[in-house]
C-alpha cells in the first residue's frame, strides 16, 4: 500500500515537473520584424494619411507594430489581428476596403468608367469616319484624302495635254 502511494506521489511529482517545460515549449517564439511587417503592410496607420503601417515612422505606429508582434506571439492569426484593428480603429485601416455598402463603388466605378470611355471613343471614331471629307482648295465634296492626289495628278495631266 505504501509502495502504491509512493508511486502515485512520484507520478504526480514527475507530471508537475514536466508541466512548466511543456507550457514554455507551447509558447510562440518572438515573431521577427519580417513576420510583423507582413501583416503591418496590409494595414494603414489609423492616424497618418495614406501611410502603410510597416513604413510609418511615428511612435504610435511603432506601438501598433509591437501590438502585432505581441498578438502573433499569443498565437493570433493574421486574419484575427486584422479584425482587431478594424474593430478598434475602423475599416479605414485596411489597405483594401471591404466589399460592402458604398465601398462597392471603388471596385465597380473604374472598370465601368473604362468601358464608358471605350464606348465613347468607338462612337466618336465611327462618327468621324462617316463625315464627308472636304477639300478647301477645290471646294469639292465627297473626296477622300487618299483620292485627292490621284485626282490632282489626273487634272494636271489633262491640262498639260491641252497645252500640247
Amino acid at each position: 500500500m505504501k509502495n502504491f502511494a509512493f508511486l502515485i506521489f512520484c507520478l504526480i511529482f514527475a507530471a508537475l515537473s514536466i508541466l512548466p517545460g511543456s507550457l514554455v515549449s507551447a509558447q510562440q517564439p518572438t515573431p521577427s520584424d519580417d513576420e510583423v511587417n507582413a501583416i503591418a503592410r496590409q494595414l494603414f496607420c489609423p492616424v497618418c494619411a495614406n501611410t502603410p503601417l510597416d513604413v510609418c515612422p511615428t511612435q504610435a505606429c511603432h506601438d501598433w507594430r509591437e501590438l502585432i508582434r505581441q498578438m502573433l506571439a499569443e498565437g493570433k492569426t493574421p486574419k484575427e489581428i486584422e479584425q482587431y484593428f478594424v474593430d478598434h480603429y475602423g475599416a479605414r485601416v485596411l489597405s483594401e476596403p471591404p466589399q460592402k455598402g458604398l465601398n462597392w463603388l471603388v471596385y465597380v466605378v473604374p472598370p465601368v468608367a473604362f468601358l464608358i470611355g471605350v464606348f465613347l471613343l468607338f462612337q466618336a471614331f465611327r462618327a468621324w469616319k462617316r463625315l464627308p471629307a472636304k477639300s478647301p482648295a477645290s471646294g469639292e465634296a465627297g473626296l477622300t484624302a487618299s483620292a485627292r492626289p490621284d485626282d490632282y495628278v489626273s487634272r494636271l495631266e489633262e491640262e498639260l495635254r491641252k497645252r500640247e
Partner: protein
Amino acid sequence: MWAQILVWIGLLALLVLLGLGLFHAQHPIMSIGSKVPDFSLTLFDKYPYQGANQVNLAGLRGKVVVVNFWASWCVTCADESPVMEAAWNYYQPKGQVVFLGVDYTDVDAKALEFLSSYNITYPNGPDLGTRITPIFNRNIAMPETYIVDQQGFLRSEQIGPFQSLADVRSAIDPLLIGR
C-alpha cells in the same frame, strides 16, 4: 442615341456622387448650437461611469458633458491631463458635470499606462471603430474637448489643450448657471 443619353446620365451621377463625397469629407457634422447625435462609449474596466462599463450620451441628459479626445501618443494631451483631472475633481462632487475621456486610435495598454501615470480618475474609454470622433471633427487635432449642455446641444469646443482650470471653468460655469 439612347445609349449616349444613358452614358451621360451615368457620368453626371458619378460626378454628383463624387461632389457629395468631397462635401461630406470637408464639413463637420456639427457646429456650435447643434444637437449632438447620440453615441455610446465603451469604457476601460478601471474607468467606469457609475459602475457601468458603457455610457450613452442620451443617458446623460440634465448634466453638462465634457467630451475630451486624447491619445497616449499625443504630447499636448499629456500637458492637458493634470488640468482635466483638476477640473473633474472640482466638478465631480456636485454631480452636475460628467467628464468622458475618449481615447482616439491608441493601443489599450499604452492608454491605460497614460491614464495611470497622470492619475486620471474620470470615465475613459477607447473610440472603438473610430465612430465617435467623426461626429465631432473628421480632421481631429489632439487634444480636443467638446462641451455638451444639459439638453444635448454642443455649446463650446476647445481645439488644442486647456491651459488651466480657469479656462475649463470659463467654458462650463455659464452652462451651470443657465446662461
